[in-house]
């Protein structure tokens, strides 16, 4: 199993570990509920160095990335990022990714740890024109600083004018005296930053961020709370809401797919599906009786199975049992009463608006 450069620090902080995508990662430190609350109310620091980093380089880098991904890189200037997807010609999702336009010759892509090898192969095989695909994952660590206090904590360690960096923009800069790529992105539903850096400086940055955040009650946060945070924000997790047999249109990610682009992998199949309609769609459910939905549980209506749960938990912020899942389009309207088969017992719930949790934007 692989370990991140911060493994010893996690151990010293009392972390409990879990295997994830071939990595031995911290799942919790003080406890998932406390860590979750720290990110919603203050600030949390995550080691997500297991994530992969793949670059497309060359004179044709942007054009190659346009063809490989479903979102429109034409909308990006240098220093801007966008959420996107790699799709197969049949529309199935190879991975969900974050695409950063560094320059007209360099596109920097953050991919899921569990898909890194698959993505790299896929991109290399399908990369056309004057461009090269390079797996740089082994060089990079990634820290995520998330929560309403994140900007204040990071601001003490850099001269970057953080307040003027929009969401989804990124800058290469010094943080605590180390070179890093600072992106105004995250996977928690809170404001925050993701900091890419060389493995060798990750430990120093981690320490500096914890130190800077000590007066803000900063907490190290493991993958357990990362999952509950993203689920409340209804952000998909590959292997749960997304896989090779699921299309973006089914997953409620139509907004990511830019059909205006003349060509990209999956375009024809997705256009056909848009016209024909999807056979199932992602919904959010809240249970109205005691119980917790979990991946694989059947969604039931009038005794018939109409779908399945892909992720579920007891929402720490809302105090309610929430779940994401796929059902036939007929049952996707908000307010639709559906049940979940929990160990042979039908537990009532209903379809709700997504996300389950939306942060209050400052200055509203």
């Amino acid at each position, binding site marked *: 199993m692989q370990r991140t450069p911060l493994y010893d620090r996690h151990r010293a902080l009392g972390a409990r570990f879990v295997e994830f995508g071939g990595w031995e990662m911290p799942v919790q430190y003080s406890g998932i509920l406390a860590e979750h609350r720290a990110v919603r109310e203050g600030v949390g620091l995550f080691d997500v160095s297991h994530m992969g980093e793949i670059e497309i380089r060359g004179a044709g880098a942007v054009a190659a990335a346009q063809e490989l991904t479903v979102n429109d890189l034409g909308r990006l200037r240098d220093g801007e990022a966008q959420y996107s997807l790699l799709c197969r010609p049949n529309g199935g999702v190879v991975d969900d990714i974050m695409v950063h336009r560094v320059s007209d010759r360099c596109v920097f892509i953050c991919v899921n740890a569990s898909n890194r090898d698959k993505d790299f192969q896929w991109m290399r095989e399908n990369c056309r024109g004057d461009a090269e695909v390079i797996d740089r994952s082994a060089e990079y660590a990634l820290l995520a600083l998330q929560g309403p206090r994140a900007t204040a904590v990071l601001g003490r360690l850099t001269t970057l004018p953080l307040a003027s960096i929009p969401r989804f923009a990124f800058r290469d800069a010094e943080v605590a005296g180390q070179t890093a790529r600072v992106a105004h992105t995250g996977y928690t539903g809170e404001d925050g930053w993701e900091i890419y850096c060389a493995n060798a400086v990750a430990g120093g940055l981690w320490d500096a961020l914890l130190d800077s955040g000590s007066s803000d009650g900063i907490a190290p946060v493991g993958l*357990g709370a990362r999952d509950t945070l993203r689920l409340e924000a209804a952000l998909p997790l590959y292997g749960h809401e997304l896989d090779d047999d699921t299309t973006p249109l089914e997953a409620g990610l139509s907004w990511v797919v830019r059909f205006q682009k003349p060509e990209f992998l999956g375009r024809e199949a997705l256009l056909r599906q848009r016209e024909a309609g999807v056979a199932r769609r992602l919904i959010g459910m809240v249970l109205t009786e005691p119980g*917790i939905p979990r991946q694989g549980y059947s969604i039931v209506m009038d005794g018939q199975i109409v779908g399945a749960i892909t992720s579920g938990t007891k929402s720490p912020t809302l105090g309610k049992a929430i779940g994401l899942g796929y059902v036939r389009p007929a049952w996707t309207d908000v307010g639709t009463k559906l049940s979940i088969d929990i160990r042979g017992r039908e537990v009532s719930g209903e379809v709700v608006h997504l996300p389950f949790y939306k942060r209050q934007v400052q200055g509203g």
Partner: protein
Amino acid sequence: MEFPEDLKYSKEHEWVLVEGNTATVGITDYAQDQLGDIVFVELPAIDDKVSKEDAFGVVESVKAVSDIYAPVSGKVLEINDDLPDNPEMLNEDPYGDGWIIKIEMNDPDELKDLMTATEYEEYVAEEKE
């Protein structure tokens, strides 16, 4: 980590307090620590029959679902009604307010299969390795 001397322990990390023919059952300090924040509990009904080493209930942490196993066979005399609304009591006081059910035992001889506090402490130490 606490291992009260007056209790008996199962390999599935339940504890048993024996008073006459009644066995009070809960999960151990080690079990609650391993599970993490417990957010849901499913209990049997009073008068339900439980069998040694069969699941009689469920505890769910934020991340995972775990069965609770009966350390002895018998009939459910009492359940801890406060638990469903306060599942965190299993974390906060596993040997006290976090008790789960009381069983009227069929066969007190089954208690012989359970561990003493010292044996259980060793068992946990081995499992941790």
